[in-house]
């Protein structure tokens, strides 16, 4: 009998091997208050491992948004993306923290009938729209949110929670991180007996953020997104993630930008698409080549890795998990372990941030 509604979703065997890294594990434990259950899969690309810790919104990144609402957004977006791993993890966390099964189900099933205030329902609907259909659909849902009395800074935080969940969903789905431990966790006798203590440990790590000045405006591609969050603790975390991602040597900057460009184009995010175009021009890519990449996912002059990852990038925008994971296995077999993991990180980040881009950069 399935304990949650995504357990029937086909999920391939994991594409990565877990490896211990004491420094990264201690980094995660210090930030989250509890061990990060999957960081061992990502140690070959440290910026990605750190981003999976740093971009968790409930650990000091939200100044305006209620943390409980943030949890519900993560649950619904993970369900939307059919990410068995993240969905099971958020669900287990909510159950352990005391949310009833009935309330979780009502939020998942039908927002109109769930026990939610209009503001909460509008926030969840907006996050769902941003994640599902990208900028075009999010624009309408954003207006509903503002009409419901949600402030502009709160809207940005809702958009960020949805985007960070989109990022984590793909970072877990693409390499098929096993979801089974979390799926079984809430019903395990040990977890049920120790629930109050586990809940306390989980809650201890969670904290509300405080206004944080952005010390310097970065100059790398997509710095506009960082600037859009200036004053929020989200800005320095995004800045650090971008900085480390662009500097990471696993893939060339041009290859990463091409993946960003394809995802921005597929989602119809004009802001992110023009940012990628400008940056690619600086990298020496001709307008003709960029047009060819965007319209036909290939161009003369791409190197073999780019030729492999550009068409794969579009597969990550809308997908069913198992076929995407099989396709990812084929891609992995043609790359080094570090290249593949870096591609997973870049594609995941691009999917989250290009969905976020139009919301925050178009409405400063």
């Amino acid at each position, binding site marked *: *009998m*399935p*304990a949650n*509604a*995504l*357990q*029937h979703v086909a999920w391939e065997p994991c594409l990565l091997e877990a490896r211990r890294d004491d420094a990264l594990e201690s980094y995660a434990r210090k930030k989250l208050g509890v061990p990060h259950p999957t960081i061992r899969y990502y140690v070959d690309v440290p910026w990605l491992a750190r981003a999976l810790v740093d971009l968790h919104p409930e650990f000091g990144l939200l100044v305006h948004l209620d943390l409980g609402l943030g949890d519900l957004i993560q649950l619904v977006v993970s369900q*939307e993306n*059919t990410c068995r791993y993240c969905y099971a993890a958020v669900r287990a966390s909510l159950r352990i923290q005391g949310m009833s*099964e009935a309330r979780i*189900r009502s939020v*998942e*099933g*039908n*927002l*109109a009938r769930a026990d939610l205030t209009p503001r909460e329902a509008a926030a969840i609907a907006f996050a*769902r*729209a941003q994640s*599902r*259909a*990208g900028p*075009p*659909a999010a624009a309408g849902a954003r207006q509903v949110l503002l009409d419901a009395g949600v402030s502009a800074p709160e809207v940005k935080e809702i958009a960020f929670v949805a985007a960070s969940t989109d990022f984590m969903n793909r970072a877990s789905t693409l390499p098929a991180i096993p979801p089974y431990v979390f799926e079984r966790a809430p019903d395990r006798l040990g977890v049920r007996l120790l629930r109050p203590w586990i809940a306390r440990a989980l809650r201890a790590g969670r904290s509300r953020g405080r206004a944080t000045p952005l010390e310097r405006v970065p100059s790398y591609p997509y710095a506009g997104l960082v600037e859009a969050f200036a004053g929020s603790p989200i800005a320095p975390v995004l800045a650090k993630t971008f900085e480390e991602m662009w500097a990471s040597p696993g893939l060339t900057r041009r290859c990463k930008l091409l993946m960003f460009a394809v995802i921005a*184009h*597929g*989602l*119809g995010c004009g802001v992110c698409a023009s940012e990628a175009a400008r940056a690619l021009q600086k990298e020496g890519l001709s307008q003709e080549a960029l047009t060819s990449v*965007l*319209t*036909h*996912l*290939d161009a003369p002059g791409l190197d073999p890795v780019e030729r492999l990852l550009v068409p794969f990038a*579009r597969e990550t925008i*809308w997908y069913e998990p198992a076929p995407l994971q099989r396709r990812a296995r084929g891609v992995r077999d043609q790359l080094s372990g570090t290249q593949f993991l870096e591609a997973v990180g870049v594609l995941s980040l691009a999917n989250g941030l290009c969905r976020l881009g139009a919301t925050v950069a178009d409405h400063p």
Partner: protein
Amino acid sequence: MTRALLVVAGLGLLAALLGALYRQRRRTQALQTQLEAAAAELQRLQEACARLAPAGVVQRLIADRADTGAERKVVTALFSDLVGYTAMSERLEPAALARVLNGYFQRMSDAIHDHRGHVSTFVGDGILAFFGALQPNPWQCDDAVRAALAMRAAIRDYNEELAKEGLPPLAVGIGIHRGPGLAGLVGSRERMEYAFVGPTVNLAARVQTLTRIHKVDILITEALREHLDPRFVLAPMPAETVKGIAEPVVTYAVRE
């Protein structure tokens, strides 16, 4: 004596209470199990619906809203038809005919689905599919032509299987066109479906009929060619007039 009776009565009451609690717990567990099964079923249903209509439309339906989610979109329509179906239907027994047809529909649907297309409906032995209707897809023209080439390859493989059983080979004619139309829930109160309607669909169907005149299996329109990857090998066909269109229609056969 009275005290003993009271103790026995108390114990009896306690036992009855515990029994009732146990039964209540069993009932709650059974209800919980049913609820979980229903929720999982609902999730499956929602996912199945999402393959038939955009997720936003499905959500509106779930929320009991009456709007149809209708919107104008530019979509690529693919219309395919089985060549020689009438002759084959007269030759084969109904059971064999149904098996051959189902095999054909399955293979064609897989080829369309593998290239991000959405089978809208089966019209007799024909198939109407859309690319870019359920989700925005800037690569819809390339996807549609790749799907048509996959359908050609699938028919070739299927014919080898049919030949081993002594069954006649199948052939398809495919017409593809790109253009604007209205996407949304259409139909009667009793039967609704997510559809894309407009002249784009009609022209794709007309272009499909031209495959017999030009004796080719895949034809695309000029409007589609303009957005197509130039690496596809095309052959221009003479312009032909078709029913319902004033100007002769320029088409291209897709070689590879």
